[in-house]
């Protein structure tokens, strides 16, 4: 176990996730349901617990209700602790006024008082919108061995995609010599995963310098890391090998979900040495009817399947009626699908009712995203909820 006075984790969870469209209308990106059971933030929170980092500040801002109630006092992750544990840190006002978090670095800066309470030597900064399993204690050990000021976790990305990432150019010993944000001609394929370990004092100093600069957008990747490089800090890249996915877009969110359906998934949810914790719903085992057919899918408890489910994910309490066919779809908790429904490449929110004979029709194969609580009357077309659309009888609006 890593004591609070050694390392405090700061988990950035305030992201709006604009590119996730309807999924983040009512909740923050880290709270988006994932993998038939979880919310995105569960992966980082579980990583903290499994790594023995038991003091975690979670910085929330955008639509925090669901996220706050999900985290609670941290019981599912064993983070309800007398010493440390999880603390939700929202923007606040004091006598001088108050402000929203302007950027990732500003969010940490405004909560330096929280970090100082524990007086840690190191601060781990992570974000709640990535799907991966990582032992932060190994990264911390590397940081100590390298006597680094800053360690940044990096992952090898395909060269063709390197220009989409923040790329670290490193020397032989792993020391970072240059940081290029989305380079046109990448010279390296080590992408920053947005996971940082800082020596606490160096972090404090640089956050103060950054705050004093009115031109800064107070962001780690854009401002603080380049500023530290310029100041000649000892910065090292820590190479992570394993599954890692940013679920920032609908397409990547869908892909990350579908990645779990491989016969040998790259991210093993059944690994008992590294469990992913979440708030457990209390539902009976799911029921598969004699006429049902399920393959390459994840099905959670409380579901009743009478139809055909192929390469899809069902959250708890989903009902799939007789004669219905689901393909490449993600159906969130409590949604009821009638008989003879056809859904392809659809992400259906919670508690949606889809009447008998409804179908998706997407010639361009784009993802259909339906907001929670929507209702589709019998035989209507299941199409994406448009921005600003109210819930209700959607099929009738035409």
């Amino acid at each position, binding site marked *: 176990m890593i004591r609070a006075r050694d390392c405090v984790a700061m988990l950035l969870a305030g992201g709006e996730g604009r590119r996730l469209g309807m999924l983040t209308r009512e909740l923050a990106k880290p709270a988006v349901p994932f*993998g*038939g*059971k979880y919310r995105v933030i569960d992966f980082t929170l579980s990583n903290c617990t499994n790594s023995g980092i038991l003091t975690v500040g979670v910085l929330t801002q955008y639509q925090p209700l669901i996220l706050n109630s999900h985290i609670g006092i941290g019981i*599912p992750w064993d983070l309800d602790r007398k010493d440390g544990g999880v603390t939700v840190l929202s923007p606040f006002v004091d006598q001088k006024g108050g402000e929203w978090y302007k950027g990732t670095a500003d969010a940490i800066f405004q909560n330096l008082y929280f970090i100082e309470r524990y007086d840690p030597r190191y601060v781990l900064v992570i974000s709640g919108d990535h799907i991966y399993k990582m032992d932060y204690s190994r990264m911390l050990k590397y940081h100590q061995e390298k006597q680094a000021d800053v360690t940044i976790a990096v992952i090898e990305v395909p060269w063709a995609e390197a220009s989409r990432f923040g790329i670290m150019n490193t020397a032989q010993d792993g020391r970072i010599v240059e940081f290029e944000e989305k380079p046109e001609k990448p010279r390296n394929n080590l992408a920053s995963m947005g996971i940082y370990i800082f020596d606490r004092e160096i972090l404090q100093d640089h956050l103060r310098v950054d705050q004093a600069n009115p031109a800064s957008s107070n962001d780690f990747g854009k401002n603080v890391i380049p500023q530290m490089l310029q100041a000649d800090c000892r910065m090292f890249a820590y190479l992570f090998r394993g599954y890692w996915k940013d679920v920032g877009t609908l397409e990547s969110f869908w892909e990350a979900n579908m990645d*779990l*359906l491989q*016969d040998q*998934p790259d991210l093993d*949810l*059944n690994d008992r040495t590294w*469990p*992913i*914790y*979440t708030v*457990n719903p*209390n*539902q*009976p*085992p*799911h*029921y*598969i*009817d*004699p*006429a*049902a*057919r*399920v*393959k*390459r*899918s*994840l*099905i*959670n*408890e409380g579901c*009743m399947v009478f139809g055909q489910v192929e390469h899809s*994910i*069902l959250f708890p309490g989903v009902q799939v009626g007789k004669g219905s066919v689901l393909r490449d779809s993600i159906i969130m908790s409590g949604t009821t699908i009638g008989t003879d429904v056809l859904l392809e490449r659809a992400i259906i929110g919670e508690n949606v009712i889809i009447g008998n004979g409804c179908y998706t029709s997407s010639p361009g194969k784009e993802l259909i995203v339906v907001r929670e609580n929507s209702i589709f009357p019998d035989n209507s077309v299941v199409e994406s909820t448009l921005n600003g659309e109210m819930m209700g009888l959607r099929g009738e609006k035409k």
Partner: protein
Amino acid sequence: MKDVMGVIYVNDDDEALQPLTKDRCVASVPFGGRYRLIDFILSSMVNTGIFNVSVFTVRKYRSLMDHLETGKSWDLNRKQDGLFILPPQTHYHSSEFQGALQSFNQHLDYFHRCRQEYVVISGSNLVCNLDFAPAVSFHRESDADITILYKEVEHPEPDFAGCGKIITGEGARVQEIITASNPARGEKAALCIYIMRKALLLDLIQQCTEAGKFHLLGDGIIGNLQNLKVCAFPAEGFLSMIHSIGLFYRRNMDLLQPSIWGELFFQPGLIYTKVKDEPPTRYTENAVVQNSILANGCIIEGRVENSVLFRGVRVHKGAHVKDSIVLQRSVIGENARVEYAILDKEAYVSAHKTFRGEERKPVVLEKRKTV
């Protein structure tokens, strides 16, 4: 319900459920894919609004204590009231345990300290989803000293064999309880659920223990049928008392009917159990699953038919599980075949092996055993 407390006691001998009860008591026998028997009565009490529940144990209660923990899963980890696990004061040899009243007598302090006026007492081997509120109201209104819950027998299954047949007279007043009978269709089977004032229970405990008698139904209630007003009240819904391997098998299989699944697990309230952090169950390309219920954490690469799979079961490629109950974390190897079987926790059926019983006589593979 603030003035009602719950008492769960050992009403059945664990010999009848061997080998499932080799290392566990009846109350902690797994049931229904992810539950243990005690979950049903405990959840029923909590859903009724009873928040002071004691569980009296006799033997082999390690797994029961592990399961109940602090009562968190039932919302019973409370500062006031909550869950009380009350093991025997001294360790009995099997021959020394003579009845529930003996257990109660060893924990009189518990009863004295509780503020509740009424007590709902229940055995621990019931599969049910009950709301006790109507029975408690009936008890108060009928001015009964003791109310016994009964089930009107619908099918000629032996669920209630040995429970006692209740014969009632006017105003649901119990005239006779015949313990040595097997209640037939239309008759009233006693459910070993009793409602009475705590003060009366304390009297019964004292009266019986002084006489060296400890059986709650036989000595405490039947022995006082003439002096006390004992009434009967019907319990509704899917109900069974699991007292044989055959019943264990058949009542699990009943859950494959969606109507029973929906009734037992959802009506009137949810059945709670200790949660495990298992991922959703994963079906691979070659999975074929029909008419089955599956808890989380399973990986299905083979064929599963008419079966109940508990959490974390692994069915490998080419394996075929049919008409079986597979408990937590058991593994069925490649091309193995399991039929009319009960696999206890972490059992292992090796690749290409067959483990088969008969419909009327399912075979049991003991915990952590390999075929």
